[in-house]
Structure formats: structure tokens, C-alpha cells
């Protein structure tokens, strides 16, 4: 999967320097503070994981970065540009694609229609066809089912389709919200392998997961979110060995 986009320059950030920077971000739903000022950064080319228990605010973080939720205070900066005034639908133009929690595919549309919608920001038919071929190479099971109605795919296939659809936009950065949610272990492994390959090809990934073991295995760095605050962060290897993490998230 190449990340070059026909009409969009590659990110200015060098590999290993911050592509996404979240600074003291606070978000509330009505009066309830879901994020209480979190800061994090994702370097270009990295897989960074964000882990935490139910309701910690992981989805809220991703949705806010994806501009689906308003910012109460703080800043989100992508490749030197402030995302504050950017709308959700124009974010793909910046090179950021979200794979929503619970997949968010279009169930009554065919797999191909889903993919083509993912390529909404491409004008050229040949680019779409080419991108589809690359995406299908990554997810052969999706390629075999292009004419199937998306809602009839298995849960794991739907997750693959959701990722494939996001890749159709040729994003420089992918925001993944719980790709393992409700999926059989074997398919989960497939999906994480695909994520690793997407990252190898140069796409930067912010990965939200409840499956702490896998998240720490596949990411380079990780942030631990606890009730709207960053409780811990560091190299994923170190975190996986951390006693507190082991006790709280790795089941002993």
C-alpha cells in the first residue's frame, strides 16, 4: 500500500518527528468532562496505541481528532496545521482517515460501493481502480466479495472493509478505533497483521484498543488513558512489562 496521493503532497514532517500533536485537549458532553486535558503525539511512520478501560475516553479522543466532536479547550495539530477549524468531511483532504468504532460501514451498499465511497476525494477513475487493487491485495477476502452487500459480511470482514474503505482515501494517517471489537481471535490476528503492513508501507497509525496485549505487541509506543486523563505513557515493550499495567489490563 503506497501512501502517495495524486493531489496531495506527502506530509512535511520527517519520519520520526511528530505528525499529530494533541495538546492539553479537553472535551465535554454537555456538562460531563470526558477528556480533562490530554496531550499526546504520534510521530510519522509510528504505530501508537491508546489503551484504557471502558469509558476512559478513547473513542472521544479519536472522534475529536477526526473533528466529529467540538473541542472544549486545547489544540490538535496535524503536520503543522491546526485542526480546530477543520470540518470532519474535509479531514480526508488533509490525509487523515478515521475507521469508526463499531466499523461504521454502509451495510446496504455493496462492498465495492463502500470502497468507492472511501475514494470519495479522488476524482480520477484510474486512481480509484489502482487504489482498490492495492487495498484488495492487503485484504484478499474483501476482494473476493466486492459484489456482496456489506451487511452480509462476517464481523471480521466488516472490520476489514472498514479499514479498506479508509485506505481508499490514501491517508497519510489512520485513526483506528478498536479494530478487534467483537471479532474471532484468528481474524483479529489477520487484521493486526494487515495494520502492521499498512504501517510498514508508511502510513502513520493511531490505534485505540481494549485488547491491551495485542495493542502493545503491535505498537511502538502507547498511552494509557484513565477517566479522561493520560495515566501513563512510554514504549509499548516497557508498558507490557510494567507491573501495574499487567495487573490492570493484562489480567495478571
Amino acid at each position, binding site marked *: 500500500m503506497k501512501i502517495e496521493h495524486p493531489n496531495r503532497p506527502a506530509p512535511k514532517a520527517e519520519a520520526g518527528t511528530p505528525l499529530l500533536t494533541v495538546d492539553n485537549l479537553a472535551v465535554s458532553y454537555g456538562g460531563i468532562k470526558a477528556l480533562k486535558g490530554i496531550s499526546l503525539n504520534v510521530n510519522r511512520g509510528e504505530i501508537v496505541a491508546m489503551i484504557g478501560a471502558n469509558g476512559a475516553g478513547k473513542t472521544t479522543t479519536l472522534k475529536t481528532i477526526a473533528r466529529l466532536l467540538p473541542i472544549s479547550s486545547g489544540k490538535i495539530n496535524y503536520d503543522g496545521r491546526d485542526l480546530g477549524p477543520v470540518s470532519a468531511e*474535509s479531514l480526508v483532504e488533509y490525509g487523515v482517515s478515521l475507521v469508526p468504532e463499531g466499523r*461504521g460501514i454502509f451495510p*446496504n451498499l455493496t462492498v465495492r460501493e463502500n470502497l468507492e465511497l472511501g475514494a470519495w476525494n479522488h476524482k480520477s477513475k484510474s486512481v480509484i481502480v489502482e487504489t482498490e487493487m492495492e487495498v484488495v491485495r492487503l485484504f*484478499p477476502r474483501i476482494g*473476493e466479495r466486492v459484489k*456482496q*452487500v456489506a451487511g452480509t459480511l462476517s464481523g471480521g470482514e466488516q472490520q476489514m472493509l472498514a479499514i479498506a474503505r479508509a485506505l481508499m482515501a490514501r491517508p497519510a494517517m489512520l485513526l483506528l478505533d478498536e479494530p478487534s471489537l467483537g471479532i474471532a481471535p484468528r481474524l483479529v490476528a*489477520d487484521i493486526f497483521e494487515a495494520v502492521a503492513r499498512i504501517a510498514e508501507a508508511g502510513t502513520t497509525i493511531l490505534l485505540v484498543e481494549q485488547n491491551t496485549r495485542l495493542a502493545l505487541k503491535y505498537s511502538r509506543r502507547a498511552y494509557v488513558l484513565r477517566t479522561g486523563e493520560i495515566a501513563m505513557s512510554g514504549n509499548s515493550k516497557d508498558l507490557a512489562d510494567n507491573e501495574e499495567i499487567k495487573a490492570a489490563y493484562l489480567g495478571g
Partner: protein
Amino acid sequence: MPRIVRGVLITALVVVVLIWLESGFGASPGFQTVLPDAAWRQLVLFAMVNVVIALSLNVINGMAGQFSIGHAGFVGIGAYTGALVAGHLHVRLGSGDPQFANSFIVMPLVLLASGTIAALFGLLVGLPSLRLRGDYLAIVTLGFAEIFRLVIATAQTGGTAEGSVAKFLASLGGQNGYAGPEGNGVPQYAGPFWIFGSVIVATLIAWRIKFSGWGRALRALREDEIAASAVGVDPTRYKVVSFVIAAAGAGVAGGLFASMHDGSPTVQPDSFTFVQSFDAITMVILGGSGSVSGAIVGGVFVTVTVKLIEQLQGLESIQAFRADHPSIDLNALRMVVYAAVLIGLMILRPEGLFGEREIFRRKRPKKGGGDPDNNAAQKSQSTQESTQDSENSTPADKESTESASSKQATSETLTTAEGTAS
């Protein structure tokens, strides 16, 4: 035969048939030959106007999945606009009987004006209400349609009006209706040529909208608004533009309605009440939300049903019943009959007669919606397949080597998954 040649021939044939229906080429008009009874002609033309109403409402309620319940308001705006334009042009053209030849001057301007004014009001109503999530559109459209109607119906008409707005409203005739600038009726320029022609054009436009990138964006929005904006579809823009298109279509229908052959000589506010809006919704839901064919069938069906119930009211036994029970409002009963039909249909076929499908499309996915694979998509597919044949490193190859070498287990589950899926 090349596609273009075929297209031109079909268009020419259709135009000739339409002209024959209206003018008969010197002999008696084809429409009168086919349907000698004026009441029948009126019913057919009225049904066609309703089809345009249903086709336009289907864009916003069916395709975009929003809920507009004041469509009659836009029809009304189109009707008054059309009546004003037709009436004044008619005077300019020297009054007398409306000539078919003159309709080529009058009707294009009528339809343009009706469509444009209704579209402008659509923008005015849609822009604020569609920005907000939720069901604001329903409330706002309902309120708008009623305000429009009441402003006209309750205007002072006795020559006492002061100020240009009040004078203008007074000239529309209030509750009694607008009868043209000279008060002798709105000229009836919209014959079968214009009405059938509009139905054809409206159908083509609806079809284009549905089976294009636009239609796909609307379907995506309807299924999952968050996911749609995540892929770059701007919800507000698509909803507002769809609403404006729907309003414009309603306006055109109103323009046709105002100067319809064998129609009412006046345009009355009572033709655009909530009942008519509800009829329009019934047409769309009955035919199948999102289906172009469904809107056409729904439009005809509802028109005929309404007529039938009206006719039934003329029956002697019903008249006698009415005389015996003056307290029972049979017009209100119409709504009950309707509701019963709707409820029955919703139980039997919750997705309407056609669901989202169309009559004339051969290829269909197994479940749910129509198959919007347009030619471009099919082309892309064949390009892809041919590349697969000619190149070495292709998705298919890669996939087969992969599953053969490392993922036998996966390919096993894969076949079972396929077995259950199909």
C-alpha cells in the same frame, strides 16, 4: 446502432408523440382521441402532476432520508408563481384562447419561475433546519407550508389593502383563489405535451441523481452519517442541495398544476394544505422510499384512490347516508381510509411496494437496495479484470499464493463463510 443515434431517435419519437397528444397535427388532439371524457383527461393529467410531486419529494425523503412534511407548501409557491407568470404573459399575448404555439413561450417561463422561486424558498427553509441534527426539518417544513398558505388565505382582499406587499397579497384573491390578472381564470397552457414532458424529464433527473455519485453519497448519509463524513461526504451540503432540488421539483409541479388543461381556473390556498403534503408522503412511502419507479406508481395510485373516494361520495347510498348522519365528516374519513391503507402496507411491506428497487434494472444485489453500479463502475471492474489477466503481480495471484502458503486455515473458514453468505 450507436448510443447517440439511438438517443436522438428516441427523443424525437417521444417529442412527436407528445406533440400529437396535444395538437393532433391539425386533426383532433391525440389526447382527446385517446380519452374522449374530459374528467378522465383531467384525472390523468392530475396524476402526472402528482407523479412530479412524488418524484421530487422522493429525492429528500426517500433518497436523502430526511423528513419533509410540508411539500405542498412548495407546490403552492410554484402554483401561485406559475399562475402569475402565465396570467400576465397571456395578457401580453393578447388573451383569447390559449394557443399551443404560445405555450412554447409561456410554459418554459412558467416552469422556470415556479421552480426557481420554490427552490429559493427551499434554500431559505432548508439551510437553517438541515444544519441541525434531528427532526427539525419536519417541524420547520410543516410550519413553513402552513404559514405560506395562511398568509395567502387570510389576506385582506376588499380593496382596502395598503402597501405594496398587502396589495400584492390582496391580488392573489385570498381564500377564493387567484383567477389571473383579469379575474377570468388562469390560462390553461399546460397540456399533455408539457405535463407528460415534465414527468419524463423529472424521471430522468431523479434517475440520474439516484444512480450517480450524488445518489451514492445520499445513500451513505442515510445509512451512517458519521461514516459518511469520515469518508469526506459533507452531510449539510448534500442534504441542503437535495432539499432545494426537491423544492424546485415541487415548484415545477405547482406551475403545471396552476395552468393544467381541464384543471381548476383558479389557484386556491386550500389545494396546498397538510392533507396534500400528507398525500405526497403517502405516494413516496407507498411506492418505496428511494425508488424512482415507486414514486411514479405511488403518485398514480394515490391520485386514483383519492378520486375513487371522491366518486364514492357521489353515490346515492353514500349521499343518503350523509343526509341521515350530517355529523359524520366523510372527508375526514378519507384520512382514515388512507391511514388504514398505509398501516396495512407498512405491515405487509415495510419498505413500500418497490423498496428501494427499480422496475427496469436487471442486475440487483441479493439483499436490500437497488444496484447503482453505473457504467463507469462496471468499466472500472472490467479494466481491473483485464489487468489481472495481463499482469503477474495481481491481487488474485497474490491472494492465491498467500492462502496456499500460509493461511490454509483461513481459506477453510473462508469457504464456509462464503457458503453461509450466499
